[in-house]
């Protein structure tokens, strides 16, 4: 009852046979061992599992692996190019935009998509854009600062 899928993740194409009920996030974590994408809630609220699907921020717990067939996925592991941190990663580091780090990959990926759509956002727009990503540690203040800083350097 497996389906064979071909998915490009962080520039590498993988072929795998998966159960139809396997979620994209499970495929990333358990088949490809890309454990930077986290599962925080099972109900699509928390955003810890956010990845880019064909460039669009998507909660990978809301999508089946078979739906990713033929598509391009970018996870947090694929954001740094040739070992150079992406400006968002740098800004989160510099502005103390993370504490426990669990929500961080999802927040960074959501911000990546957001800044593409809105390269020069206000604080209010950043806060609104991050509604789908919960963070229980930072109170969001330094996340907002980090996104603003990244916007300036991108």
């Amino acid at each position, binding site marked *: 009852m497996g389906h064979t899928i071909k998915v490009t993740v962080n520039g590498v194409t993988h072929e795998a046979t998966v159960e139809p009920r396997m979620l994209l996030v499970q495929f990333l974590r358990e088949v490809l061992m*890309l454990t930077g994408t986290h599962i925080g809630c*099972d109900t699509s609220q928390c955003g810890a599992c956010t990845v880019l699907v064909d460039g669009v921020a998507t909660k990978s717990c809301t999508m089946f692996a078979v739906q990713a067939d033929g598509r391009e996925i970018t996870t947090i592991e694929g954001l740094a190019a040739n070992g150079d941190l992406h400006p968002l990663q740098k800004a989160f580091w510099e502005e103390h935009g*993370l504490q*426990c780090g669990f929500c961080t990959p999802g927040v960074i990926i959501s911000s990546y998509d957001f800044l593409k759509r809105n390269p020069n956002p206000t604080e209010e727009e950043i806060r609104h854009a991050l509604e789908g990503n919960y963070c*229980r540690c930072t109170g*969001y203040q330094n996340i907002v600062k980090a996104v603003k800083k990244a916007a300036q350097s991108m």
Partner: protein
Amino acid sequence: MANYIGSSLKRKEDRRFITGKGTYTDDIVLPNMTYAYIVRSPHAHARIKAIHADKALAHPGVVAVFTGKDLQDDGVNPLPTGWQITDSMIEPPHPVVAVDRVRYVGNPVAVVIANSRAAAKDAAELVEVDYEILPAVVDATRAIEKGAPTVHDEAPDNISFTWELGDKAATDDALSKAAHITRLEIVNQRLIPNAMEPRSAIGDYHPARDELTLYTSSQNPHLIRLLMCAFVLGIPEHKVRVVSPDVGGGFGSKIFHYPEEVIVSWASRKLGRPVKWTAERSESFLTDAHGRDHYTVAEMGIDKDGTILALRVNTIANLGAYLSTFAGGIPTWLYGTLLAGQYKYPHIYVQTKGVFTHTTPVDAYRGAGRPEATFVVERLMDTAARELGMDPAELRRKNFIPADAFPYETPVVLTYDSGNYEASLEKAMQIIDYQKWRDEQAKARNQGRLIGIGLSCYIEACGIAPSKVAGAIGVRAGLYEGASIRVHPTGQVTVYTGSHSHGQGHETTFAQIVADGLGVSPENVEVVHGDTAQIPFGMGTYGSRSLAVGGSAIWRAVEKIREKAKKIAAHKLEASEDDIVFEDGKWVVKGTDRALTLGEIALTAYVPHDYPEGLEPGLEENSFYDPANFTFPFGTHIAVVEIDPDTGKVQILRYVAVDDVGNVINPMIVDGQVHGGLAQGIGQALWEGAVYDENGQLLTGSMMDYAIPKADDLPHFEVDRTVTPCPHNPLGVKGAGETGTIASTVCIVNAVVDAVSHLGIKDIPMPLTPERVWRAIHGK
């Protein structure tokens, strides 16, 4: 030499988190691993008549199904509680997996273990449990009424303990003579912690070596090892290693020894294969220990001139179905002792009843007792000021413990180490421009707008200590901390700490301390934590204790390294030991330019060809630090809110936090801790709250139903500090992890009530959702 202490060094741990290379427990995959899924009770109270596991066992991929009886027959003991509140406290057994009765929705009933997560979950649905449903009670005030359903036969009236503190007669007397009494009835609602990483545990038993490794998302791996080995499984501690790798937030909920840690450990020993369990979020809601849940009646007696005479508090604390690890201590010793707040009123009496109900166990959640105490004191202060026609800042100022009165002994057994309450109040009022907002409020009222200003002057007690006192108040553990420092031959340093970081940034803060202490760069200091095979016996991280207790232990080890280094330097530099001083990161012959660095001394210590007579080679030291006292951070927070009269929605216009946490090692990290604490405290004030129906079903059982603050719910916080060092620990530090939560809940409630007080509203119960505020305004 750079001064790293006091600088906002970027965090050393961040690279792995921002690149997706952290290692949380669920990220770990071991060869031949199995997966556990736990069958949980759907009923709050029921008798288990029978469990049929045949169909589940026959399901493809299933390795085993275990019930509570299997564990019991194999000698697995109930989970212990770690805090005895009174001699007569009733401690009913807390089976790891229920045997004959279930007492809350989520109570483990059976365990299915399979070769994949999916198979385990599928098979769990095939386990048939026959229940005889029994009546349940969820509200603690109801549970102590005559005729309420009984949770445990051992406690027929559902009361585990009745605890009191303070002089009742003197307090009653002072209240009877007071010119004015301010009285409040307070519901401090139940909260669900919701650390972003769901709990996870892996048991990994190696039969040939008879060794067990438990990976668990815990705040204190040694405590888990001790409780599990000594009390539950009865296996030797030296054959058990507990690893808490990267942990995705805790806020108290990952302190406790949970059933699942025992289940995966025991099952791995049975099966000879690794067993992993990871909570789904709905399991987190049902089984992570909840927080708060107090019903309180508080009365404050005040003289005509605003001098507070006495405080009397009666609290009913909901403990849930079983006594979790530190359950009893939270609504008693960590609560009643804080009821003096920042004030010098001479008489306090508090009584707390700890009550069982058919709900998830309740234990420490960020602040743990101290937010509840601060809520009582600071709600009373604002209410009293209004009733007396005084400005709330003025009433507080009048009753502050003066700055020259420290150390100050309160009527509820604590001795505050240091403080300057007036200074933090002044600073906060200045930053927010208090008088301007009072004027603004008056103007707004004339226009029908609702603006409110709330104050909160709080006290916190961090790092319960010393161990002697912990013992005297019933804690079944010492509360010191261990550290060891290993200087390598080439001068790099590894620090092993008993504290545990799950977001607090210890790998950076502790490295800064050691860098300054030994004259090395923080890049050359590695901090190891969370692995009982590596670190000295440690008590872990909770109650804002890591820096004050764990950091002090590290500093003591630094001092021991310095002492030995001095002997080596004296020998090498051909000087008297008395003439060697540690200056600018080097060991220097006083008044000369002759000096040695740590690297040079370390090399000598490990290649001791030319070495002091009788001195041991090597450069490695241990320390266990047992503090002389708690530390007492304090501060003032002020919030300005505006309420939309048409919708009841509260908007926070300004939030100013002035905290005093003693000396600060890394200001960036401390600010971050305050921000996060504020978010959780404001969350309680405005949105969060666990709701059960009368049958004990948790209605707020997912992130769709339980409102965790989001980025656009919260304002930009204005954070500042005063610095009053702690006089009794070597770093002069106090603790910063909980101040935000302790201060902010009541600050916001005070602001909201202040905004509507002219409408005759004295109080609104939390959370102050738009509906509740709207109903209060419109009297509906």
